[in-house]
């Protein structure tokens, strides 16, 4: 890290000519302190705890890497939840980013009522997860028949009717959907803002050249909003990897481990099994997982932009 700072080009030019070193410290220290106390320090403590076996009330026992070995080699639930978390993330991303992009594009074609729709679209974000979870349990229910199964029945897809939250094959998708649905509005707003900022001249020139809607989108609009897209993707990914409330409230990870995520598993390990050491080990893994995910996104999108 030091090397990077010393590299000649990284010195960030200040916008203020006459600023003092103390002024930087005055502005920087309070936020940094809060952040260290609330975020960095607990992460370090987790790292520390992950080398111990501790149930909260017994004496702490140093176990070296045993927790890590157990996690990576001997814990079937851990791997199950890891892959679930990835799939959960994928579904959330498709719903949030895909949905946001589609709606934002549709919205740009609208001439009136944009403001109203934007507001309505954001509404689900204010409802508490408890209410959302309960609502969706009702929607997915089969006995009594819930809304989804009723709809399927009406459109003639009765064969698809099922207990969505009890079927090990559908439950993960079923718990991902509400999470995706909740925050689509937020991402839609951001993407919409980027889309309307695309210079009209560019689009009109392309239309004159006979470009189809699709080429217009892929060749003009999307490249233009790529930086925003990266930001949104990172936001959605990290929130997706943090997902907890809805699966925890709707199914508590079940049936079996079909909707167990790393976060819910970690939480249960800590607070149900009182295995704080092992839970910290999973926490450390989650932190690394998130860092890797963001790194990968930046890497992939950068390469795409360069090519």
């Amino acid at each position, binding site marked *: *890290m*030091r090397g990077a700072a010393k590299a000649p080009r990284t010195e960030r030019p200040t916008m203020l000519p006459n600023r003092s070193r103390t002024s930087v410290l005055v502005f920087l220290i309070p936020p940094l302190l809060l952040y*260290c106390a609330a975020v*960095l*320090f607990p992460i*370090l*403590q987790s*790292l*520390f*705890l992950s080398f111990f076996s*501790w*149930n*909260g*009330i*017994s*004496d*702490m026992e140093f176990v070296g890497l045993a927790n890590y070995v157990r996690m990576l080699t001997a814990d079937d*639930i851990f791997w199950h939840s890891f892959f679930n978390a990835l799939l959960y993330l994928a579904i959330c991303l498709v719903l949030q980013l895909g949905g946001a992009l589609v709606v934002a594009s549709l919205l740009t074609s609208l001439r009136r009522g944009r403001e109203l729709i934007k507001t309505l679209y954001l509404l689900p974000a204010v409802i508490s997860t408890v209410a959302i979870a309960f609502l969706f*349990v009702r929607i*997915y*229910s*089969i*006995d*009594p028949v819930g809304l989804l199964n009723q709809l399927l029945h009406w459109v003639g897809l009765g064969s698809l009717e099922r*207990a*969505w*939250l*009890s079927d*090990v094959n559908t439950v993960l998708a079923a718990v991902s959907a509400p999470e995706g649905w909740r925050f689509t509005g937020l991402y839609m707003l951001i993407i919409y803002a980027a889309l309307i900022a695309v210079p009209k001249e560019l689009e009109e020139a392309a239309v004159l050249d006979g470009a189809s809607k699709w080429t217009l989108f892929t060749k003009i609009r999307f490249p233009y909003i790529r930086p925003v897209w990266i930001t949104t993707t990172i936001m959605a990914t990290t929130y997706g990897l943090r997902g907890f409330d809805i699966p925890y409230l*709707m*199914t*508590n*990870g*079940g*049936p*079996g*481990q079909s909707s167990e995520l790393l976060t819910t598993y970690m939480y*249960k*390990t800590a*607070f*149900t*099994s*009182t*295995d*704080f050491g092992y839970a910290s080990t999973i926490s450390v893994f989650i932190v690394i997982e998130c860092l890797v995910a963001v790194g990968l996104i930046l890497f992939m999108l950068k390469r795409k932009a360069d090519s």
Partner: protein
Amino acid sequence: MKKLFRAAAVAAACALALTACGGGGTAGNPSNVSPTGEIKPREISWLLSRPADGAVINIMKKLADDYAKDHPGFALNLITTPDRPSYIQKLETLAAANKLPELFDTDATPFAQQLAKQGKMVDADKLLKSLGVYDDYRPGALDYQRFDDGSLYMIPFQFELEFMWYNKSLLQKAGVSVPKSLDDIPAMCTALRKAGITPIALDGQDQWPLERYVAYQPFREAGPEFVQKLKKGEASFADPAGKKTVGWLAELGKANCFQDGFSAQGYSDAQNQFTSGQAAMYNIGTWELPSLATDKLNPAVRNDIDFFTLPTTEGAVTAANEYVSPSGIGMAVNSKTYDPLVSDFLKFALGKYPAEYAATGALSPTTTVQTAVPANATPLYKKALDAANGLGSKQAMPWDTQLDPTTNGRLQQELVLLVQGNITPEQFTQTMDDAIKQNAPKFFK
């Protein structure tokens, strides 16, 4: 920056080491139940997991107010977290931080047993005896609170009986009668399903209701000792009693005994299915008497409802009058903060509590009072209360208070898969026996 990191890590280590050490040494003397000294009124807290507006809390609030009249400065701060998983989280974090209040609720779980071992809870056996109320309690109510070694650290505030409630007319419609044996139930479900009736309404979301079913067969086949051995790894699901329960649950699943999608349905959903006449049976305790045996019950089913107790099996080692009769989550007394005031207040409150509690129409954990039947009760109310007088000496313990928490969590998850037919009985047995082998030693050293 590196230096900062190192400093932070060292500080982290110190903070943790400090609290960890603090966790060990500061307990009071658990068997000193009658502390001497002056009664100095102060505010004490009770961390509990009971309905916020329920009888226990209302009565204790009132008793505390009465006590405060003679002891100015006294107050009882009731901190309730009715949602059990959230409560357990809170209790565990408080225990880890060594911040348990004067009184706190817990079941006789392995975690509680560790707290007791560390001397953090007052010996309730001695405490109740010294207060002169020990013999008032129903033996079953105290037994429910005991650890396997017979020691007692929690005081019960309730007494409940669990029955299988059923809808007479739905059973009639399907041409089936009340099961004589547990083994009759799968066939009964098949018949009910054929008649288009949901056989059993089950709250799958809260996990414990399905876990009751796994306890029934072993309790009949091998008695209450089975689970005590199982949790330590001394018995296995491959033993005859274990095999029987696993096979039976798989059969229940095959016969579609529970409503479709039960695993995601909550308490109210399940009860509504029964009280709206869609489901034929419903396994629940006497705490639901106010909604199942009074005029609050849906009039459409009010005259069709009855209950039977846990059926026996052929060659059962426990009697028909022995079943699940829990005395609810118990109250432990923190030994560290136990002083003449706490002692005196408990003496006052425990003496007056039973009469107040029985007046609400609930079964008291003591035998000293008569439960008042509410004015709007159906005849079933009295029948249910009377069952408490004819109980045998053994009781079926709910497994969620017995197994270590990790195994328990795994069992709850695997049970759903077993009943849904997602895994075979063999897979279930394998997974669970492995889970016990891995987790039990940590808790039952």
